[in-house]
């Protein structure tokens, strides 16, 4: 077993270990400052893989994952060298999850902190009920993305499908491509310097070079539905 960063990667092979055994190995570092690199082989769409981590490990998953990969992540740096199923990085608290393929619905749902980077596309409800994390999707996002998002940020390099930002609270959305339609109470907003800075740092953190913050439009809450009023009944 290796214990320090830079040592040879430790291998966790799902062809030989059960999900419980694999997660037990990964979670055995919880509460430590261990940053070992662990390679997970043969994930074959396994659900709930690398969830509940709480150490700055580097985990590289060599293939596709099922639902809730890296769920509730704290501190860990999880890379999926494939596609990820529903709810990847759901309720992430901190750390980083990097998916090299596409992600299914509800990516980073309710995530409080950390960064999710998606090289491909994200399906519906990306960033639903987001609570402070950042998400960068290099492709397109599906409908109802950032539904009821409370805090945090979604950066979309491609297009956004219908009802983007429906019932959004204090979260921010940046879109470089087209927006099919905005959801209830979501409006376009001006981009100030501090927004450009936020955007630039997220683009840099997610490895997007040669893309300028000025190419994006910003969306957020009109704050019209924050209190229940009779005038708004038509919106519901």
């Amino acid at each position, binding site marked *: 077993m290796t214990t320090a960063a830079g040592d040879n990667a430790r291998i966790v092979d799902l062809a030989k270990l059960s999900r419980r055994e694999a*997660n037990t190995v990964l979670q055995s570092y919880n509460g430590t400052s261990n940053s070992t690199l662990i390679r997970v082989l043969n994930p074959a769409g396994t659900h709930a893989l690398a*969830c509940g981590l709480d150490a700055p490990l580097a985990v590289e998953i060599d293939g596709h994952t*099922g639902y*809730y990969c890296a769920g509730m992540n704290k501190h860990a740096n999880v890379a999926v060298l494939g596609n990820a199923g529903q709810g990847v990085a759901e309720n992430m608290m901190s750390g980083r999850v990097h998916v090299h393929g596409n992600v299914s619905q509800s990516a980073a749902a309710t995530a409080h902190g950390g960064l999710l980077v998606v090289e491909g596309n994200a399906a519906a409800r990306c960033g639903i009920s987001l609570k402070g994390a950042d998400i960068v999707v290099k492709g397109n996002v599906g409908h109802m993305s950032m539904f*009821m998002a409370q805090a945090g940020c979604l950066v979309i390099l491609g297009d956004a499908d219908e009802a983007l930002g429906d019932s959004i609270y204090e979260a921010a959305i940046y879109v470089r491509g087209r927006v099919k339609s905005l959801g209830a109470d979501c409006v376009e907003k001006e981009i100030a310097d501090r927004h450009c800075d936020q955007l630039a740092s997220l683009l840099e953190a997610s490895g997007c070079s040669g893309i300028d913050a000025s190419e994006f439009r910003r969306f957020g809450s009109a704050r019209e539905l924050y209190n229940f009023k009779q005038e708004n009944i038509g919106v519901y």
Partner: protein
Amino acid sequence: MSEPDWGLRESHTFDRNAIAYIRRAASTGLYRIRGFGAKRHIPNFDDLLLKGASMSRYPLEGYREKCRTSVALGTRFASKPIELAIPITIAGMSFGSLSANAKEALGRGASAAGTSTTTGDGGMTNEERRHSKTLVYQYLPSRYGMNPDDLRRADAIEVVVGQGAKPGGGGMLLGEKISKRVAEMRTLPEGIDQRSACRHPDWTGPDDLAIKILELREITNWEKPVYIKCGAARPYYDTALSVKAGADVVVIDGMQGGTAATQDVFIEHVGQPTLVAVKEAVQALIDLDMHRKVQLIVGGGIRSGADVAKALAMGADAVSIGTAALIALGDQDPAYQTEYEQLGSAAGYWEDYQSGTDPAGITTQDEQLSNRLAPEMAGKKLANYLRVLTLEVQTIARACGKSHVHNLEADDMVALTVEAAAMSGIPLAGTNWVPGT
């Protein structure tokens, strides 16, 4: 209210409640949102009677022979099931809807009586963790304050699909109650109306839920019992699908169930009575050969030891109480009559849990009001109340010849009305008739 004169005839159709409702709607243009539970009459446990013992059944000696009350929850999959001394649990009520003092009092009372309390839509506070020996952590659609550390320091996890007062409705906390602390815990601005989601953000349906539960178990090392709580919409299928999704414990809440803030029309008109909920849930467990393997907790309008005994006799493993626990803490206290009146209500009628103006200091975030509730004293009252319920269940169980309250059975009861017989599956007294079978 003065007595109407002889000769004045009140309409049954347009009675004073109906008239007040129309007048209110006409003047505000908004539906009423309120707390408490359904106020209409619904067939309930009062419509059942226990038979007791005589020639064909031997009773146990009241003060000498033991009648046990313990219950183990989560024996199906969890490596650390919960052991409670009594089969009466405290239902999930959020910090936000309740003051921090009220949450602490619930923890103190429940712990003293040997039972569990439950978090709510708003996350876990340190006060309630510290004062609750056994704490169930709710996993709700809103996921306010949800984090893996709290998940791990909980004793059990309750996935909330719905609650009896509003099966199919999301949480609601009006701006009046969103103090700085509540807002921070929920990651939302102060003073806004919080309409929490009615569906979970990352799963839909029992097949997905099974995977969600798998994740929760993986994160908590398969130690914690996982409950699924549903409002009684279609209790037979709600229960069966909860079992399929991998629940250790199913919690079913009848339409009488209390709430902190819900549309009045929802409270009074949606969901099924608790009697129906118990019957159908037990039937589903029996049909799946899961009765007593997956435990059943039933809530919604439980007030007395008699209610508890009847729920257990119908096949529940435990009950949960919300409103009754608040009343035990001091809700509806006649000592606050003048203040209730100033708010347009009266002790015994108070239902404005949503307003944050609670004279008893329980359903509020106002510091001055919440300081009225002394957690230690209120906790003692709750513990007293729970002990009375337990003694009453034991009294009934002994009279029916049972050495454990779980030995109470449907055959120990009769129904007083045709409706209750049909809903509960207990034969009408003096007959062996269960309508609808």
